[in-house]
């Protein structure tokens, strides 16, 4: 494969590119969905191709093709150069690439059972039996899904990188939807849209779906007759998976250096963060310690090298509430004068690599959910995301959860439906006053992060444990 990659790279450099790199990918995926005890969708997918990018002046040119013949690979290199060169009609300042080690290496995601070698009957049976049970217990729509990815990547560059990686990811989830009079209520496990990690079939087995079908069904039905979440300002306790999404939206995207530099301004937006405030800006309370760590075993965004050949690493993002780090690529890091953090990935061979969150997580505190609830006089505990929305500076957000629980005088009392909360990023994080510890720290994964044009879907990780936030506006309704 590296011979083929080098044909394309040599062609781009020979045409005049100052730098070129290329990836050949063989990507396999399996998607299974079940509804009400029946198989709804079973799809095996496999594709293969090359994507090459060439740097000319201030612009990347990128060309992707499924045709891996020598002639096509040489043509692809030339096209990447010509596409980059066309950009010179509207040029910017030339930029260098930050230095990274030039390595030849290989890596395979540690796993016990490759999900593509496990019988599809076992996988289908797990979903069908789970959704059948929930339907039998009274769920209006019982649904489940499993997704597996096995991605082989060969990466080479004009600087001499030769890296092979085989990344294996597995995940899925189940949910019970109850339909009432003009409303729906849903409960999901392990989190909404499922939970995803690097690893094999053992990831799915660890979820033990069948142990949760009764609770999910009962709670989704009970929500229909529960009172609405009260409106007002209260203490808010967030369950880990909801806090993971809060981190993703209000921290993870805000610290992407390409956004801060304005490269995503027209679509995903920019950031409320300004580089000249790095190491000064207070992001949150002193309990807030965020790291971007692509080396966490089993987390969804764990790998050995990113799609620019930069080694995976752990980078401090927020230390004791102060903003200290950004997510970078070789180009953006060079412009900003910071070290490249190995945070550039692409969605398949056909997309240009771009800055992506790795495992951007909140380090655990020293409390526990039990202690947090016991020390709360008047609050709401919210579990499992249902809706999410945030502005393009990553400041003004509103989240909805599947279920809320009133907390009175240190005890959980009533279930409430349609819980929502809203806030402004630094104020919200500044109000975090209790944080659960390592025993409740989970490597939550998000498999559906959209960014870029053309659109790319990224897989990101967000370790988190439950936490409490003081005086948050809750119960916003239309």
């Amino acid at each position, binding site marked *: 494969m590296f011979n083929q990659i080098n044909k394309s790279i040599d062609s781009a450099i020979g045409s005049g590119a100052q730098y070129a790199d290329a990836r050949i990918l063989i990507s396999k995926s399996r998607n299974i969905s079940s509804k009400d005890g029946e198989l709804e969708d079973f799809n095996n997918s*496999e594709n293969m191709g090359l994507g090459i990018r060439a740097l000319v002046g201030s612009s990347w040119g990128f060309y992707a093709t*499924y045709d891996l013949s020598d002639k096509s690979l040489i043509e692809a290199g030339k096209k990447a150069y010509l596409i980059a060169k066309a950009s010179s009609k509207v040029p910017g300042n030339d930029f260098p690439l930050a230095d990274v080690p030039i390595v030849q290496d290989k890596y395979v995601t540690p796993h016990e059972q490759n999900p593509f070698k496990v019988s599809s009957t076992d996988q289908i049976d797990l979903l069908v039996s789970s959704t059948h049970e929930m339907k039998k217990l009274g769920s209006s729509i019982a649904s489940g899904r499993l997704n597996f990815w096995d991605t082989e990547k060969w990466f080479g560059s004009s600087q001499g990188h030769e890296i092979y990686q085989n990344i294996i990811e597995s995940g899925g989830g189940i949910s019970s939807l109850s339909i009432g009079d003009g409303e729906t209520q849903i409960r999901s496990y392990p989190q909404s849209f499922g939970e995803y990690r690097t690893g094999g079939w053992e990831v799915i087995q660890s979820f033990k779906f069948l142990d949760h079908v009764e609770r999910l069904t009962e709670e989704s039905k009970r929500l229909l007759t529960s009172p609405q979440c009260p409106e007002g300002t209260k203490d808010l306790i967030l369950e880990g998976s909801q806090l993971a999404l809060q981190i993703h939206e209000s921290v993870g995207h805000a610290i992407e250096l390409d956004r801060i530099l304005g490269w995503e301004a027209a679509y995903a937006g920019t950031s409320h963060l300004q580089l000249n405030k790095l190491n000064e800006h207070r992001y949150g309370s002193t309990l807030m310690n965020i790291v971007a760590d692509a080396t966490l075993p089993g987390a969804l965004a764990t790998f050995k090298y990113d799609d620019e050949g930069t080694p995976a690493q752990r980078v401090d993002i927020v230390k004791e509430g102060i903003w200290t780090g950004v997510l970078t690529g070789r180009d953006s890091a060079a412009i900003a004068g910071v070290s490249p953090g190995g945070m550039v990935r692409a969605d398949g061979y056909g997309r240009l690599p771009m800055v992506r969150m790795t495992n951007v997580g909140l380090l655990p505190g020293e409390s526990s959910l039990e202690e947090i609830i016991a020390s709360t006089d008047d609050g709401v505990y919210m579990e499992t995301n249902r809706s999410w929305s945030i502005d*393009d500076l990553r400041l003004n957000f509103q989240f909805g959860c599947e279920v809320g629980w009133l907390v009175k005088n240190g005890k959980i009392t009533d279930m409430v439906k349609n819980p929502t909360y809203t806030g402004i990023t630094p104020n919200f994080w500044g109000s975090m006053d209790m944080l659960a510890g390592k025993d409740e720290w989970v490597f939550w994964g998000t498999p559906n992060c959209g960014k870029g044009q053309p659109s790319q879907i990224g897989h990101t990780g967000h370790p988190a444990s439950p936490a409490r936030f003081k005086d948050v506006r809750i119960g916003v309704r239309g």
Partner: protein
Amino acid sequence: MKIWENLIEDTKKIIPSDVQCEIKMINSIDSLTRFANSHIHQNVEEEMTDLYLTFHSDGKTTNLNFNITSLGSIDEVVKKALSEIENNPKDSSWSGLASKENSYDGYRNLSPENPDLRAQKVKDFIDQGGSFNGAGYCSSNVSNVFVWNTNGLSSSDTATSAFLDGIFRSETSSGSSHLGHKTLENIDGEKVGQEAYSIAKESQNPQDIDPGVYEVILGPDAVSTILVFLAVYGFNAKSKVDGTSPIEIGTEQFDKKITLVDDPHKEGALNFKIDASGSPKAQTEIITNGVPKSYFHTRRTSTELNEKNTFHEMFGWGDSFGGLGTNLYLQPGGISKDEMISNVKKGIYINEFWYCRVLDPITQVVTGLNRNGSYLIENGKITKPVGRLRFTQSFMSSLGQGNVLGVGSENRFADSEFGEGILNVPMLHLKEFNFTGGVSG
């Protein structure tokens, strides 16, 4: 295309007579030139040929998806599929293959646009922005689709599209504009740039206003967001099958001024004239004078609801999604933008929505924000730009009876949360829209 013809010839030789088989191929060249900080920084092109194969035998179904490189030998693929299918449970909602009579020949051998022309369109846009910071993209696409099945159906179609979408930003404001057409040469970069610049200029130094219920005028991109949510969560027949659709056919649920059709044959429509079953699409009334007339059906949903198929199956999407119209046209009214503004006593003009998410599909309560140009209108005149607002509003109610005060006279393709080129809409004047938060949360 030779590659397609060869594949089908090989397949015909090896498919057992008791197996139903459908093969779809999407062949496309997608190109996109992206600019930020007023220069081109990313410029990409992808050529792809993806295959979607469905096999049905002994009441069971399996789906396989390859690109042409990873397909290898079709003989091996068929063997793998038939072996895999034995592991699957019965497919109770299998609704068959399209008939041979539905065959359609729309393939045209077209070449992609070149990157120099896209760069020129970007330059035309940026040149309108003065000292403001420009960002956005110019894209072009040629797509071919092919469908064959063991009933003898053989269909094909070709679609092209081009878009220019950009913003200008000042220190305190931003303004956007968007145009789409079948060909890049018909995109007027200067016009798009002038509109975005004008909005950004007029939006400088926005002031905060109190949240609350306001009259609103919505630009085409904001209108398309409302309609695409209703299309995906309401008119998609899969949501009706699931019991989560708020749409009741034949009931006057919307304002009489709302008439929506899906028409792939309308002059300038950008998307395919066949659906993923290979069957030709026809003009479909979706809402007529406020009354829902049809869901977007696939073979499966039409069987499950015992309704006529409207042929809205999507290429590349699984059965779990359902159907969606991709050539939607909201009937224009007769009111110009200036006249619409002059009709507002106190309200807000919203150019675009951003990051909209459904709180409950059955109520269609959605939360989201405004961006890229919003103004306060008082006594028929724009009085000042306004800052960030969060809304929490039922999209069903927003177009409900009596809430649509006016429909604009000019349509254009508009971007939406689910992509560009599927909605061609005018501006709308709505009586009430619920803003639940401002800059301070």
